[in-house]
């Protein structure tokens, strides 16, 4: 099986470190033609780093890269692309100011010459039609005008598109994080077709069932090493989680099915569809297909209940961002400052920051949600994506605001961490905090006491108690289509 001479790409003993962090500590990974390799691991395990090595963006400090049996010296981005290596990155990476066609031009360097627009349009349209049939995306649109799910679709289609050099190895780093179930399904189906036609795929996801059903072989990484590597059928959900080293609390996630809450209403909001209300101590889910107005509702709630001109003594709402690059982290700052920014009011006297209290509170929360860092004074960017997300959680939860707005906050958070956060949320809710939670993952929506289902910017249905299940949500999400 692990025959180097046949592997599309074979990385041997790759070591990469960033300062003191050993992102890769001797990783060996081979990808055969006609194979889908699933890559899993906790946040910061080194998955994205090995991806960077394979696509030529990063030269390992030790170890070798070989392709089709030959040692690749001076392996770089262009060499990788010439070998047909394509990549969908964890964060969105299109140019928002360019049209889809122009982005295609950027992605395919050898597409130049007279009439490139026509050719580019054809290439990307063909690919979109193949991967996401019935996508309804116009290729002359500017990427910035697309929804986040549409952008991700374009990126995926871009990776599978062929402008001269056919893609042989496509790397998908958490590609489904912004896609709803049906789009994710289409993509996974395409992956299988691509594999069947002899292509190779490296598939990274924290959504384990996707990995289990799509991959041929699964590689588990932990702390920069490969800790397990087996055929997919030899793993089950539980085994995978165990291999990743996370504490598996299987199915700890069932919503507290009491009767309808009688707690006081803390929030109500008029929307285009059904009215929105929230009671103290409730966990309210916002569900539906991605990009159908859930985030907008959260932003509206935040805007109407927080001041933009005067500082507030007692904030009403607090917000956990999903798109942490755009509206989450402060990149120049330390972890501690990122954590404390929302609760400075409590950590200060007459506008003066009390440094000791800030530090104590930071240390406390670092312990509570296990932020993986030696020092809270390190820069926030030294944390992995998932750990940055934890800091954002801690930032929101450490405020005194009775209402927590969450905009798909678990994007790219590993299973173990998720379970920890779920527990915290339930505890806080039990103490009377209200959570309003937009999620693209069904498991999370099922944790909620009550769920509003969105379609085209309107609230189409309200589900409560036992009615909160996958079938009802999907039914409500597609109501508009059936009508």
């Amino acid at each position, binding site marked *: 099986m692990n025959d180097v001479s046949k592997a599309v790409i074979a990385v041997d003993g790759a070591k990469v470190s960033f300062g003191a962090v050993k992102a890769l500590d001797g990783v060996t990974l081979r990808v055969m033609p006609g194979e889908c390799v699933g890559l899993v691991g906790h946040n910061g395990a080194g998955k994205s780093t090995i991806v960077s090595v394979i696509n030529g963006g990063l030269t390992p400090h030790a170890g070798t890269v070989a392709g089709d049996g030959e040692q690749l010296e001076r392996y770089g981005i262009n060499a990788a692309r010439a070998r047909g290596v394509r990549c969908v990155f964890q964060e969105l990476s299109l140019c928002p100011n360019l049209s889809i066609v122009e982005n295609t031009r950027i992605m395919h360097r050898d597409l130049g010459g007279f009439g490139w627009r026509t050719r580019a349009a054809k290439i990307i349209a063909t690919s979109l039609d193949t991967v996401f049939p019935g996508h309804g995306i116009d290729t002359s649109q500017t990427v910035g005008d697309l929804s986040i799910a549409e952008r991700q679709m374009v990126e995926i289609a871009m990776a599978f598109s062929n402008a001269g050099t056919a893609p042989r190895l496509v790397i998908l780093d958490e590609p489904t994080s912004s896609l709803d179930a049906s789009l994710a399904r289409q993509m996974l189906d395409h992956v299988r077709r691509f594999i069947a036609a002899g292509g190779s795929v490296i598939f990274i996801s924290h959504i384990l069932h996707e990995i289990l059903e799509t991959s041929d072989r699964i590689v588990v990484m932990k702390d920069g090493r490969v800790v397990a590597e087996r055929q997919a059928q030899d793993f089950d959900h539980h085994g995978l989680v165990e291999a990743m080293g996370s504490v598996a609390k299987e199915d700890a996630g069932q919503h507290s099915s009491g009767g309808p809450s009688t707690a006081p209403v803390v929030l109500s909001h008029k929307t285009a569809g059904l009215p929105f209300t929230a009671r103290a101590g409730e966990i309210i889910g916002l569900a539906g297909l991605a990009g159908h107005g859930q985030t907008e509702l959260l932003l509206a709630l935040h805007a109407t209940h927080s001041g933009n*001109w005067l500082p507030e003594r007692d904030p009403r709402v607090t917000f956990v961002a999903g798109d942490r690059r*755009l509206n989450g*982290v402060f990149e120049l700052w330390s972890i501690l400052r990122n954590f404390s920014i929302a609760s400075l009011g409590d950590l200060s006297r007459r506008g003066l920051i009390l440094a000791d209290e800030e530090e104590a509170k930071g240390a406390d929360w670092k312990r509570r949600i296990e932020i993986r860092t030696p020092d809270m004074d390190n820069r926030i960017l030294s944390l992995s994506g998932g750990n940055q997300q934890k800091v954002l959680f801690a930032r929101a939860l450490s405020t005194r605001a009775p209402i927590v707005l969450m905009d798909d906050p678990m994007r790219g958070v590993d299973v173990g961490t998720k379970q920890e956060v779920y527990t915290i949320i339930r505890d806080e809710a039990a103490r009377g905090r209200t959570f309003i939670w937009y999620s693209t993952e069904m498991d999370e929506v099922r944790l909620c006491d009550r769920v509003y289902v969105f379609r085209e910017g309107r609230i189409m249905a309200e589900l409560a108690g036992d009615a909160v299940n996958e079938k009802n949500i999907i039914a409500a999400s597609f109501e508009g289509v059936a009508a």
Partner: protein
Amino acid sequence: MSPVLRLFGKPWIWSWLAAFVVWFLTVTVSLGGGTLGLSQAALTFAAFSIIVGIGQMFVITLGPGNIDLSVPATMTLAGTVALKLMNVENGMILPGVLVAIVIGLVVGLCNYSLIKALRIPPIIATLSVSFIVQSAAIWTNRGLRIKPPSLLADFTTSNTFGIPNVAIVALLISIFAWFLLEKTIYGRWISAIGQSMPAARMAGIPVDGTRLVTYLFCAVLASVAGYLLACFSGGAALNMGSEYLLMSIAVVVIGGTAVAGGDSNVPGIWGASLFMFLVVSMLNTYGLGAGIRLIMTGLIIISVIMLAGGRRAGMR
């Protein structure tokens, strides 16, 4: 890291080094004769750049695109109106200061109202306001130079323990600014806004309020500097602020403040302001013509930023 090495990691060290080198080169020519004189002159004239530079730094900290081009016009208006109001009477000094501050507040308010109401980039909004403010300055007294009250004139032109009084004022303002930036919630807020406005908003920061205060602060510092400068140079002139436009920006960036926002630094302003004065003195001392002098100034600015820019954005 050894302390010396760590010192070199500070963003402001380069402007200080540059200032020192230039000072040294100038002093060597006069064989040490004018050392004290030169140092005092440098402190005096740097003080004005420091005061306006600090205001500009707060605005620049608010993030990309934030810049206040109305500084020169504000200085001029505050100087002319205050001196006209005081009309050479010592008893009117306090009302004079107050009217200068009020002018600063009004200009700052206009600036931010435009930025907010019209959603235009601050660079354009403040430029528009500066035209109007400049007109107002012309209209108020048509360029007549009224002398400052004698007490003020004496205060601004004399020294205390060998240190120019205006430099002491600048030092007090700098300490206040440093304190704001490092120790208060407000300082955290402007830094957060400078790094990412949406993130700041979502973290519950009153973004508009903070930005408004910052533009007010900048305009008030500009008007205070204009007031002091008018008193120092024996009367307000309609063009007295003009060189402080580029100057205020230059001292901020040479001083090591991140142009992309979010990271400011008070000591650097001092180094940069001293440097900007001393470099002109040095080139004048060496008898170089205006052309060569301009070229050298430019090249030195670029070298300083190249030296300082090699490091990655500062750690916290």
